[in-house]
């Protein structure tokens, strides 16, 4: 039983409250990812769980233990920092064994544990090196190794891959997924990288300004966002939003030449303002006599992004495949399936379903 539970967790810096009443429960063995825009409190929340920041009010449990007032040292968590935080004066081996040594474990035992971790992470050849003599990816692996060695109940990661270049990032991402499968511990992972969040998480927690917006599996969040913020945040390129007005069981969208989008959701009264959400992947364009104009086509090879402008001044992005050569400036018609459209209340930004 080593899940992590937060109950009404609050963090204040002086008068500024940066975490607002967060309730969250992470199951044993779960891989949980915190995402959210910069400054929303991801790191703060993680550090509260680690014990590196005091919790102003509320409780944090790890398994059955209330750890709210416990020192970081006593919580049985391990943390991997963005900057790796390897001790530069120790060899890889010593870095990994340091925690055990300081807590008085016998040498033999330490060596064993380190050997096992280094095997898992394929670090055997580097055990005698200092961190300086390692590449970024190797350093990251050592940092993870240091966490593994202590066999903690909970692993915490704060943007562990953001200092790596794109290629390595992909490799290490796969590695972390494998690791989670292998040791099965509870892991909490902070990132602002869409791809990492979507591919690694069992559960994604979307934070915004210190509040939890939605919690769920990656595909849940993608397919069934609770509100405009989550819908816009998950998925790349982001969802397009167009203003519309309710009319019967459909929404009239001025930007699309008053096209009426039929929908099955519970709509508010006629004439209410709503937002229509359209994923770029669900759209297609064809040359046609229309008031939508193709501003720019970014062609990335396999996929292209079309930037459209509507007569109402709203902008749209459409993801297209294939190599049709529509010249920029052409008038285009937008094609999509009404069922793929999401509807949000314009005022509350909540999803209507």
């Amino acid at each position: 039983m080593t899940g992590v539970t937060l109950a009404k967790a609050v963090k204040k810096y002086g008068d500024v409250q940066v975490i607002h009443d967060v309730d969250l429960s992470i199951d044993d063995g779960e891989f949980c990812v915190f995402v959210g825009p910069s400054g929303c409190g991801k790191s703060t929340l993680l550090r509260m769980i680690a014990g590196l920041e005091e919790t102003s009010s509320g409780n944090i449990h790890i398994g059955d233990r209330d750890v709210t007032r416990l020192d970081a040292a006593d919580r049985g968590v391990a943390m991997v920092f963005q900057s790796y935080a390897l001790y530069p004066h120790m060899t890889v081996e010593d870095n990994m064994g340091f925690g055990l040594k300081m807590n008085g474990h016998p040498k033999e035992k330490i060596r064993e544990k380190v050997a096992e971790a280094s095997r898992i992470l394929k670090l055997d050849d580097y055990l005698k090196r200092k961190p300086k003599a390692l590449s970024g990816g190797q350093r990251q692996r050592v940092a993870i190794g240091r966490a593994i060695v202590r066999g903690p109940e909970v692993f915490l990661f704060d943007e562990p891959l953001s200092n790596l270049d794109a290629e390595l990032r992909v490799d290490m991402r796969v590695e972390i997924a494998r690791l989670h499968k292998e040791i099965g511990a509870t892991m909490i992972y902070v990132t602002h990288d869409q791809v990492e969040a979507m591919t690694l998480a069992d559960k994604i927690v979307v934070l915004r300004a210190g509040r939890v917006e939605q919690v769920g599996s990656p595909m849940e969040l993608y397919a069934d966002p609770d509100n405009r913020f989550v819908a816009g945040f998950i998925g790349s390129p982001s969802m397009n939003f167009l203003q519309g007005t309710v009319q019967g069981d459909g929404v009239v969208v001025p930007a699309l030449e008053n096209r009426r989008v039929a929908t099955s959701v519970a709509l508010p009264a006629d004439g209410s303002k709503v937002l229509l959400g359209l994923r770029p992947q669900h759209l297609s364009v064809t040359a046609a006599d229309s008031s939508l104009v193709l501003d720019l086509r970014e062609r990335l090879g396999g996929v292209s992004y079309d930037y459209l402008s509507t007569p109402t001044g709203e902008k749209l992005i459409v993801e297209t495949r294939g190599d049709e050569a529509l010249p920029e400036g052409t008038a285009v018609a937008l094609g999509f399936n009404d069922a793929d459209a999401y509807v949000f209340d314009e005022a509350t930004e909540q999803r209507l379903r």
Partner: protein
Amino acid sequence: MFPKPIQNSSRAWQTTYQALVPAALIMWLLPLIAVAIFSIKPEADFTTGNYWGVPSSFEGISNYGRVFFGSDMPRYLLNSVLITVPTVIGAVALSCMTGFALGVYKFRGNLLLFFMFVAGNFVPFQILMVPVRDLTLDMGLYNTKTGLVLFHIAFQTGFCTLFMRNFIRALPYELIEAARVEGVAEWRIFWFVVLPLMKPAIAALSVLIFTFIWNDYFWAVVLTQGAESQPVTAGITSFNAQYRAAYHLMSAGSIVAALPPVAMFFLMQRHFIAGLTLGAVK
């Protein structure tokens, strides 16, 4: 890089520059060079008025010989070593701890304490003279090397703390957090994580303090007397009294007194220069 690297300018200017630097250096060090030359001149050169000419004979060996075997100079040098080395060790040790406390922990009064050290360090030390002298007298440490060392340690702790604290602040704080998460006790974090990382700062500070203390004259005069406990700076003035107007010997004595910090400086040059800015600037 500013100014423009010399490699990118005309050959002529490069050559000029290469000639200019040593010339400027000689100008710059002229007074010292003069002393060095004085120190190998025979006494006769001074009576015949040959102050600035070529030495009429090389008397370096006998001049320095007299400094080392005919005066109290070796005694003073030894005193300086016995005063400087413990001071360096003491001040660095104390300031590692204070620097760690002030650099790592957040607690009320942190900044206030830090400013106390900084302000104390910049105080005109003459204001301490009378009370410290009395204090030392009261403790029975007047005219002992211990008395001088204790005071130097205390006073230098101010400067060293400024330096160390800033250095520790520049260390990645995650290292300490990482150790905390690993369950390492605070003093062990200090000993096993922070201290090894402070080696460059310790080296730089040691050299700095060494030069400061070695060159101290004021406190040597205030807190000690006589060859039994005075350091070489005070020694050299009494040496001068003894050999008044014997410029060749005074020069040799001055050179001898200046040599240890110079040697120290050359040995640890890199740290020293880094150290000068590190602590103060950041």
